[in-house]
């Protein structure tokens, strides 16, 4: 999987999204130059078919990019934009420029207003692709009344438009279950967050092991204390597990995440995220709480992405309901619904 694409994407993101650029985004200013650089690289069209001018890659091909976006702690909806462009192309629509956030849950299209609650990354988006009942709406984020949902450094927002705003794609023709518009957007957001979290967790593991090897207490590096070693080993386990979960969430023959694999990915990475973040902070001590040190951006994102579009409880519940309704054995359910390897 260490493809040329992956290497190039990783390098580009790491160079383009330096901490100052991310700070700017977190202050609510769109880092236009950085976005332009990524736009020009073509990576944002990676999942768009070749005949539409994209790279025509499949979902598993872009996993390295998504992991790196997580490792950098990029809060703007970059991975979501890749997926949204592919969705729009499939819906026969040319995509607009700029970052596209996904609103898979919490959208209410009433008689007066369209409201979308706690949309992940909305403050750094120009567009929102929103699931509203059986339909999907493409809305201008910048035309919305935006209210920051959370606190310091967070990019989520409650958005409100007048009724009738945006472009409506009628999807009621779609079959049921996993093919419903809401389920597709939910799977997109879940898969994106899985990879972002897995990438962020790998970064957190690197930061924490390095710190434990350097920081001296009681006459030796703290990483030599058995209690710290045991914690870091547990962290490594969760990081590996999360990486595997993200790989599974990105298994697809095309651009579109499969619902149950995305559910698996979001459930596992969301379970791991607070554990990994807490161990990292426990090992780092006070320096981890400071704004200037790199850890806090990664752990903040981990908690945001964990909460975005349903925590592990929602996604595990979805898997559980599906498994109860299935007729195969537990092992076969795992093999058939929760496993896949795209060659």
């Amino acid at each position, binding site marked *: 999987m260490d493809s040329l694409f992956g290497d190039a994407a990783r390098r580009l993101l790491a160079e383009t999204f330096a901490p100052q650029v991310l700070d700017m985004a977190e202050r609510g200013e769109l880092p236009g130059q950085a976005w332009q650089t990524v736009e020009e690289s073509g990576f944002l069209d990676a999942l768009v078919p070749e005949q539409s001018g994209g790279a025509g890659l499949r979902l598993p091909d872009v996993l390295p990019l998504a992991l790196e976006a997580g490792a950098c702690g990029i809060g703007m909806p970059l991975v979501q934009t890749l997926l949204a462009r592919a969705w729009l192309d499939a819906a026969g629509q040319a995509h607009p420029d700029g970052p596209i956030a996904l609103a898979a849950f919490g959208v209410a299209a009433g008689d007066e207003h369209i409201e979308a609650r706690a949309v992940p990354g909305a403050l750094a988006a120009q567009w929102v692709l929103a699931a509203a009942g059986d339909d999907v709406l493409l809305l201008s984020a910048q035309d919305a009344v935006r209210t920051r949902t959370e606190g310091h450094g967070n990019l989520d927002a409650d958005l409100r438009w007048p009724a009738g705003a945006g472009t409506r794609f009628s999807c009621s023709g779609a079959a049921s279950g996993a093919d419903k518009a809401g389920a597709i957007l939910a799977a997109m957001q879940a898969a994106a967050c899985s990879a972002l979290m897995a990438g962020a967790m790998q970064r957190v593991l690197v930061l924490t092991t390095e710190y434990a090897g350097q920081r001296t207490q009681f006459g030796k590096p703290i990483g030599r204390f058995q209690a710290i070693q045991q914690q870091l080993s547990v962290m490594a386990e969760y990081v590996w597990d999360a990486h595997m979960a993200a790989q599974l969430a990105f298994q697809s023959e095309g651009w579109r995440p499969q619902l149950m694999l995305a559910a698996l990915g979001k459930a596992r990475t969301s379970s791991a995220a607070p554990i990994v973040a807490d161990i990292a902070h426990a090992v780092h001590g006070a320096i981890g709480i400071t704004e200037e040190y790199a850890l806090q951006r990664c752990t903040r994102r981990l908690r945001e992405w964990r909460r975005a579009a349903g*925590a592990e409880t929602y996604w595990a519940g979805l898997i559980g309901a599906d498994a109860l309704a299935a007729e195969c054995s537990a092992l076969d359910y795992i093999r058939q619904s929760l496993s896949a390897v795209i060659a």
Partner: protein
Amino acid sequence: MIETLELAAIPAEDEALRPEIRGFLAEKLRGLPADRRARSWLGFDAEFSRALAGRGWLGLTLPAEYGGAGRSQFARFVLSEELLAAGAPVSAHWIADRQSAPLILKYGTESQRGFYLPRICRAEAFFCIGMSEPNSGSDLASIRSNAQPREAGGWLLNGSKIWTTNAHRSHYMIALVRTSGSPADRHQGLSQLIVDLSLPGVSIRPITDLAGDAHFSEVFFDNVELAADALIGQEGNGWQQVNAELAFERSGPERLYSSMVLVQCWLDYCRGAKIDDDATRTALGAILAHLSTLRAMSLAVARKLAQGQSPALEAALVKDMGTELEQRIPDLIAQALGRFPDRPVPSELLRTLAYLEQMGPSFSLRGGTREILRGIIARGLGLR
């Protein structure tokens, strides 16, 4: 084997403080949103502290002769629990009231007591604690800041401290520094000095935390001249004194209520939105049940303090479990809310949750890391 703790009741006269405190807080905190109140003992508001002092609620357990109220540990428990559960901004006076005043009362000279304690009770002297240094966190023996005796008497202080809560807005620091020997002497030769932070040679750099607040600082001492009576307690006895002080630090109910504003905010939301699902009920019940046993344990520790005992082991145990619950509460609430992504959650609740998720890890750093507390418990179990 360590003895388990026995239930202790709050005496009626201390319980009677509660309505008065509530009335005061209802007025003072009106309109303060939950995510601000969630800062509670990191929330700095000198005016609020002075208002508390005006009611006689600072130095509650100090003798009346020093301006205190001469009340019991249980009275202090009631006051603390009401302040913290309400999310009052207590940070300005908190350290002085909880740690510095008892330390000065125990180890100070009569003249030190007479000078500092009334000022603490009037909220005119805010304190910070200078322990950590850039190269020593939990390992206090490795402290390098040092105070040399001056020929003219007094001390010449050099060095630096870091992660000092409120240094940039306190009047005094009680600093643990080396007054003789070298780091190789470990805990020998350390002393506690009261440093007037307005003195020449003191400079302070606030450090911004991950929530965008500046509650802790780095403090530099460059040939700071201190009078002889800056020394508190015995020269060379700093390590023992600090450990006695940490026992005060660990035994309060603040090791329980750091996430209480979030619990209340969540509960209000659930009641308001008529949320009554299984996941919510179970999480809420688990949180309240554990808060209840920990509160009972904390009260049992308060009784031991009231009886003049030094329940260092018990305090470590209650603190370790209490901070773990405080840290776990945001996670449990995130799980319960995240079970139903389609339900709109008020921003105030989300902000409070996000703040506590991020600051949660710091709960187990203050006053001894988890490993250190568990080491104390292991010693109590006879394992070391």
